[in-house]
């Protein structure tokens, strides 16, 4: 029997000890009418070999593409050591560290995780992870509302990741919390101070600032933060952790810093994996410690005064506080936080900076070169980081389909999310992309746009032969 060790002899002697005639008897408290006949949609068992072959065929069916989609999930190099360590049985098959003395491995690691995340975001403290970035934003909003006490409305710019806004809404609306959109500036793509003016004097619990925003556009975080604080709101900074190798940490925004920093942890060691498992991180100022949801690990001492680690502030949590808990969250994403910790330890300061710089340089190169193609333009004038919106005179879906036929995932079609932008494509080239990869993207884009464009025949402003980009070797 797969995964069940009982021999016939075991079964008989166990039943004898219980005083039951058969295993069937052990179910005798279940009303007969409720007993199920059979499972009709569950096929017969496959052994590991057959299941593996099936999964292999499914995986091969999906193939592998040269990926230029970002939009909240980013392809980064993950050191081999990360999952070779995180996949060790002692991490992989352990539970939440309730028995601290027998879980010092996970506990110390999570304490190191908290330290890294708090430092990365410039905040005082961190929890030990949440489900993902999108739901993490909802937790941050709930936290801000609890901390603010009076207001139940939160300002959320339209340039914040649209799915994150949907998820946050789904998770907070039942508690009567409202998300109020702030329009983005159509020219710059950023959330400008003028748009906020109209909200002055009203009671809001918080302003959410995503940096860079969903378009990859850089927000004026200092200005926005100070404005919000002046209005008595908390500031929730939503950030990409890789960007923090280069961009100012939320804790340093404006004169006082953001109050809560939240984000999608996926870029730190989680494979893209069709969307999960990822993890959310949530950091905040010390004063908000007891408002934080999720697991938190603290350092303490044992009976001999020796340092050790344990879960702490459990009084906030649902298993103690039940209906009065800060959240219903129970499971965190421990294994992903484990991978992230190893990932960050392997990158170090220098590695993280270089990854951030390489992602930005690649996307910048892609954007600059793309704009040399007749008919291709950037949509927004503002500075961007690591991700950019471009436009052309063709339906985005058609362009993406043509790219896909060449083995390229060309970016995210923004049409369903921001129809006002026209044919807008959100594109991103992380450090995993070589110059050759980017060239492949550009050549395909040029071919597709020139063939299908209704405008004048495409002429590259700088023909390939004169453009130094096309002469460099693979970097």
């Amino acid at each position, binding site marked *: 029997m797969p995964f069940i060790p009982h021999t016939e002899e075991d079964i008989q002697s166990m039943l004898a000890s219980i005083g039951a005639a058969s295993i069937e008897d052990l179910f005798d408290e279940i009303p007969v009418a409720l007993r199920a006949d059979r499972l009709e949609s569950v096929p017969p068992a496959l052994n590991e070999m057959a299941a593996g072959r099936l999964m292999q065929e499914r995986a091969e069916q999906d193939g592998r593409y040269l990926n230029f989609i970002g939009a909240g999930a980013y392809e980064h190099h993950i050191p081999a050591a990360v999952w070779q360590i995180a996949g060790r049985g002692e991490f992989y098959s352990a539970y939440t560290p309730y028995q601290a003395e027998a879980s010092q491995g996970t506990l110390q690691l999570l304490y190191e995780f908290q330290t890294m995340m708090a430092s990365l975001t410039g905040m005082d403290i961190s929890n030990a992870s949440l489900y993902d970035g999108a739901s993490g934003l909802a937790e941050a909003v709930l936290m801000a509302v609890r901390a603010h006490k009076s207001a139940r409305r939160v300002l959320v710019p339209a340039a914040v990741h649209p799915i994150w806004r949907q998820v946050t809404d789904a998770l907070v609306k039942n508690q009567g919390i409202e998300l109020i959109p702030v329009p983005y500036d159509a020219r710059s793509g950023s959330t400008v101070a003028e748009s906020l003016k109209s909200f002055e004097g009203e009671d809001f619990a918080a302003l959410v600032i995503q940096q860079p925003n969903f378009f990859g556009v850089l927000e004026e975080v200092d200005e926005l933060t100070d404005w919000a604080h002046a209005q008595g709101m908390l500031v929730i900074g939503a950030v990409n952790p890789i960007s923090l190798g280069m961009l100012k940490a939320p804790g340093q925004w404006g004169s006082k810093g953001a109050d809560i920093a939240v984000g999608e942890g996926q870029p730190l060691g989680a494979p893209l994996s069709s969307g999960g498992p990822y993890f959310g991180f949530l950091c905040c100022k010390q004063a908000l410690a007891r408002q934080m949801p999720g697991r938190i690990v603290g350092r303490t001492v044992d009976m001999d005064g020796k340092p050790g680690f344990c879960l702490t502030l459990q009084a906030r949590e649902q298993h103690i506080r039940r209906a009065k808990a800060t959240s219903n969250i129970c499971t965190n*994403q421990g294994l992903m936080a484990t991978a992230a910790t190893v990932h960050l330890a392997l990158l170090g300061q220098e590695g993280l900076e270089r990854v951030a710089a390489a992602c930005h340089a690649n996307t910048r190169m892609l954007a600059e070169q793309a704009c040399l193609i007749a008919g291709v333009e950037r949509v927004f004038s503002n500075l961007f980081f690591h991700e950019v919106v471009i436009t052309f005179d063709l339906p985005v879906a058609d362009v993406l389909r043509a790219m*896909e036929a060449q083995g390229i995932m060309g970016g995210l079609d923004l049409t369903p999310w921001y129809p006002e932008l026209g044919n807008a494509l959100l594109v991103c080239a992380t450090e995993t992309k070589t110059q050759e990869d980017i060239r492949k993207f550009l050549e395909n884009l040029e071919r597709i746009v020139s063939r299908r464009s209704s405008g004048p025949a495409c002429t590259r402003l700088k023909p390939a032969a004169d453009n130094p980009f096309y002469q460099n070797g693979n970097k």
Partner: protein
Amino acid sequence: MLIFELSRPGRKNLAQAPAAKPEANDIPAHLRRGDKPLLPEVSEMDAVRHYTRLSQKNFSIDTHFYPLGSCTMKYNPRGANQHAMLPQFLARHPLASEATGQGVLACLHELQEMLKDVTGMAAVSLTPMAGAQGEFAGVAMIRAYHVSRNDAARTEMLVPDAAHGTNPASAVMCGYTVREIPTDRDGNVDLEALRATVGPNTAGLMLTNPSTLGVFEKNISEMQQIVHQAGGLTYYDGANLNAILGRVKPGDMGFDVIHVNLHKTFSTPHGGGGPGSGPVGVSERLLPFLPIPVVAFESGRYRLVTEKDLPQSIGRLSGFMGNIGVLLRAYSYARMLGAEGMRRVADFATLNANYLMAELSKAGFDIAFPQRRASHEFIVTLKGLKEQTGVSAMDVAKRLLDKGFHAPTTYFPMLVPECLLIEPTETESKQTLDAFVAALKEILDEAHANPELVKTAPHTMPVRRLDDVKAARELDLVWKA
């Protein structure tokens, strides 16, 4: 030693960094980071060595019997892990076209179908990322249902006092007031109390079955009828589904919604606290409210059902589609079990629990509900031992670590004093259960002969008993150089 203490300024691990650090001269200073984050500067080997050694300080299923009640710590097949980590699965972007995801979507769709079958529900959404999010989704659907009928008076959610803490917390997350229902002597929900509480304000009832007391609710059909007659809906907390997998289908009992913990019943790894996965199944009337996305199979193609198809959906609960990697592991596990294997899960989880209960009873331990069958878990109360020797349930738990066993769940459910909630799962052998009984018996003897030994346990772990009061009072949550 912390990883930060291994760090030295200027140490670089260049095999893991891009070759160059291109200038980002377009980004102005006021948007750039001024300080360096506190990330360790260590060699690859030192990082590998540090975390490998840390890992060895953990108990885990792969190293120890781990009878943590309510957590279903069964073997996580390594094959499922390998299958879910095939390179193409790992490399696929969540926003890649559906055409390039037919393989993964096929797995998810078949998992949905299997879960529909085992739960007996009309439809399943795999998107909730953990049990608690599944609960949230279930309660939110109940709320959306009442709202859709303009039935605004239903503001109360009924929750038995033996429920997991997530139940009331999830109800509150959905804006409900929680009304607790007491438990009767036999460990069943008190039917009279339920009748007395239910009414026009009742939005629904959240029921865990088998309950956290380790027994099957005898009057489960009556209970859901009482609530339904009052216009409320019924929520089935499937955290303990392992006990009844393939033997009882909650949908057959008339429940409206259920969540399932794949990291319990479907044996995906707990990972030191996650990721989990908490799919929800619903009856026909809640179908329009399912959280999105859901996988549909139409004209030979798989596609994601979104808000366009389900305009009344409670919405999205995650950035993309939940914990796909966990779902793939559960799918692989389900395929390796097959229909017969699923039934055997319930059979042997139940056999192991009842055997352990019988043996511990014979060894002199007090069983909380000796008159009942154990489901997949059961409760021992050490109230008597505490009174006689001063040795508490926590002391016994800590001493078990010294004997090479992870402790059962302690002090939960709160209804039973000095309790241990013990769940052996079906993947443990009789030999292991016998060794566990022998260890507990030894501890019982020690508690009488040398209570100090037990009260100061553990003695063989990397640390002795930790001061968690100090941890909460003098918060030390991040390391400072």
